[in-house]
């Protein structure tokens, strides 16, 4: 067992973990933050995407021990004071989800994308979300949602790209 200390969604957790425990299982099973989903465990579907120290990462390809000392945001931590993040707002508004299984990862990935590029073209969105699979939407409305979120955020959402 290895002792780790991780800040997740603004709260610090101290835990002893098995060195082989995947970060995604740490989040889902230890911290019961089940919003982060698992679609493959091999870094290919993006359902498990989170933010770690400001970077977009797939939590199935990180060990919990690698997260020691880091600060993590999951889908549960994205909205602030009960107000949806513009991306959450936009996915809802533009029907960017159907079954919703890819959605937390998709939103977290899109968040990283908009931070780097606040006004992406359709092609930039499509390429930026390459690491995330959705079987339901054909991506059509996901693209629309990200475009709309970018608009909302440019229109002066105080949170900016965060």
């Amino acid at each position: 067992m290895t002792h780790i200390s991780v800040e997740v969604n603004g709260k610090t957790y101290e835990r002893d973990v098995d060195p082989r425990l995947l970060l995604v299982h740490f989040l889902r099973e230890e911290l019961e933050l089940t919003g982060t989903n698992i679609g493959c465990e091999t870094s290919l579907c993006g359902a498990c995407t989170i933010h770690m120290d400001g970077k977009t990462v797939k939590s199935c390809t990180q060990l919990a021990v690698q997260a020691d000392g880091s600060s993590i945001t999951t889908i549960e931590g994205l909205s602030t004071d009960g107000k949806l993040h513009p991306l959450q707002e936009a996915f809802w508004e533009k029907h960017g989800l159907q079954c919703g299984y890819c959605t937390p990862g998709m939103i977290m990935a899109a968040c990283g994308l908009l931070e780097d590029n606040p006004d992406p073209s359709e092609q930039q969105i499509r390429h930026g979300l390459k690491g995330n699979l959705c079987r339901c939407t054909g991506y059509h409305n996901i693209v629309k949602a990200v475009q709309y979120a970018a608009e909302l955020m440019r229109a002066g959402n105080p949170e900016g790209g965060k």
Partner: protein
Amino acid sequence: MARVFGSSIKRREDPSLITGAGQYTDDLKLPNMAYAAIVRSPHAHARIRSIDTSKATALDGVTAVFTGEDIKKSGTPGVVPVGWLLPDMKIPPHPVLASETVRYVGDAVAVVLAEDRYRAQDAVDLVEVDYDPLAVVTNPAKTVEEGAPQLHAEAANNIAFDWELGDKTKTDEAFPKAAHVLKVNIRNNRLIPQAIEPRAALASYDDSKGQLTVWMTSQNPHIHRLLMSLASLGLPEHKIRVIAPEVGGGFGSKIHHYPDEVIACWCSMQLHRPVKWTATRTEANLTDTHGRDHVTEAEMALDENGRILGLRVKTYANMGAYLSTFGPLVPTYLHGTLLSGEYDIPAIYCNVIGTFTNTTPVDTVRGAGRPEATFIIERLMDLAAEELGLDPVEIRRRNFISPDAFPYQTQVALQYDSGNYGPALDRALEMVNYKNLRAEQERRRGEGGKLLGVGLSTYIEACGLAPSAVVGSLGAQAGQWESGEVRVHPTGTVTVYTGSSAHGQGHHTTFAQIVADRLGIDADNVEVIHGDTDQVPFGWGTYGSRSAAVGGSAIAVSADKVIEKGRQIAAHLLEASEEDVVFEEGKFFVRGAPDKSQTLNDIALQAHLAHNLPPGVEPGLSATSFYDPANFTFPFGTHIAVLEVDPETGEVKLLRYVAVDDVGNVINPMIVDGQIHGGIAHGIAQALWEEAIYDGNGQLLTGELLDYAVPKPHMLVSFELDRTVTPCPHNPLGVKGVGETGTIASPAAVVNAVVDALKSYGIKHLDMPLTPEKIWRAIHQSGRS
């Protein structure tokens, strides 16, 4: 006020899903829960000499290891049945854990229970199974050849069924007198469904009550409960509760009754504690039923004017190693019956041979049988156009069933209730600017460089399978009606209980719209419950694009019954006769006197107080319906793919995709469009990228997402949609199905476009998926490169 029926209101499903609060099966945890992991055969065909579980059992943290022998000893049936019977079909038993022979890579042989999922996985590696490998066959046509390894003693030559539809003599007679005969050999590629959520089950058996509760990734909890009870566990049906929490997509793969979920239940009954099993992606790809995998020879006869005289189709359909729940239905009644397409064809004959191979069982994947049929006929139409020197548009127009010929009886059992195919085609042509495209194509051909291709698919779909008596006569061991209950509470708010079971389709929203529209109340005052056998009346679930047409209709009929009862009570309170009381926008009043009215809320309260009800009227205000549709519904439309092929590399670049669909009346346009988008993407993926490939030893070479190309965002384009509206004449909503149209239409549109682009090489047909390598080779083998 805008009508709620037909408006794009936002989905009420979404707030929990976009915040991570939605609960899927693997999110659930129960106290004292054990984790199950399944030991699977690495061989495609082998005898099991012995299974040694001692090392696994001895591992710290392992609770138990069970094999098929343990299930036998427990007296539990431990098999999964098939739900569709064809004449003379051979039905080999399908034990949930194999104890004598394994027949595909992934066949389950043992199960490990441990305190956490890592331990369970460790123990799987310690189970020692001694296999005696046998010869392997994977191809659906080759498996019937002499000398092929035999899978089941029950099925000589590996043939499960040999099925036919249509008039063979009449069809055979059409060919000798035909001016043109076109022939095509098609290998319809095998697909893996790839819902992003892998299958999972959490089973909890309560000994003291003899009650089993199962949360599982199900498209149809009542079917799962029924088959668990009837065939697999031997528990009484009323002692089983199946719950489908949030389900992360199905695409047909979560209809079926699989061994794994049964194993989880049985283990919970043995251990007297909750047991959770969740598939890894690899397991999902090895064990979720696959789709398609047909080997087909098809011929079309035409007269000198391009009118079709006859169509003859022979297909070997891969059933995999065992018959899955609805496996036999797919290549037969979902495939043969659709071979008339949108065309008036005087003679059709179809022969389908379902065969066993050492591969994962094959069953429904989005579209199920209908994409295969559409592909055959739409490819032949293009070949015929080429042969006759006609434009692909023109040959289709010449053969369309005329709008005044409905109801139209096809030669393959279906009676199309309605249709008008010209307008959808016209609109699609207008949207792509067809004339300009053709001119541009000509221009480019002269220039060299990338080749432009335009492909059409004028398709029809038959969905919302019906009526129950007919499907029963065709072999269904299931009904195809749906239940819907509308319960009005004393305050006038409403809860709807439906046997449909959404997994992304948005029924909570759409079904509330149906009820709100009918009852004239705010949609926010309607709650929809589904996916729990203890809460909703028996129903058959969500698949086959049936939920709006059948499930929605059940709800509409119940709402109407509520109004009728409300009218009785209102007439009594208004001291009028029932015939004089009208119901408009949520109010009952005497015709011509809207000022004195009783709202639905008033009536709901009175119905529950029951202080002053008309004689003979029972208290309460709710109604339940079991709606059995009179016929299938028949969505149709035109899809056009515009793409570029690079002759240097064989690469295809999709430029535009236009779809004009007729799905009847539309309840929520935003949701309907979303369904179409997803379907199109799935079908384009079949055409260009996806294929499950087995090697000669029956190893699945595409078992990971790394090798199996589920499309990523940058591989697709935004789709251009429009619709025509021809309401379904036989259901109360006038709606048809929408979930599968895209998957049915698009493979043919894309392949037709690629073949169109490659015209100058004399290439007539290429099998899907159209990978750059395949196209490049075809170009180089054409002798014209």
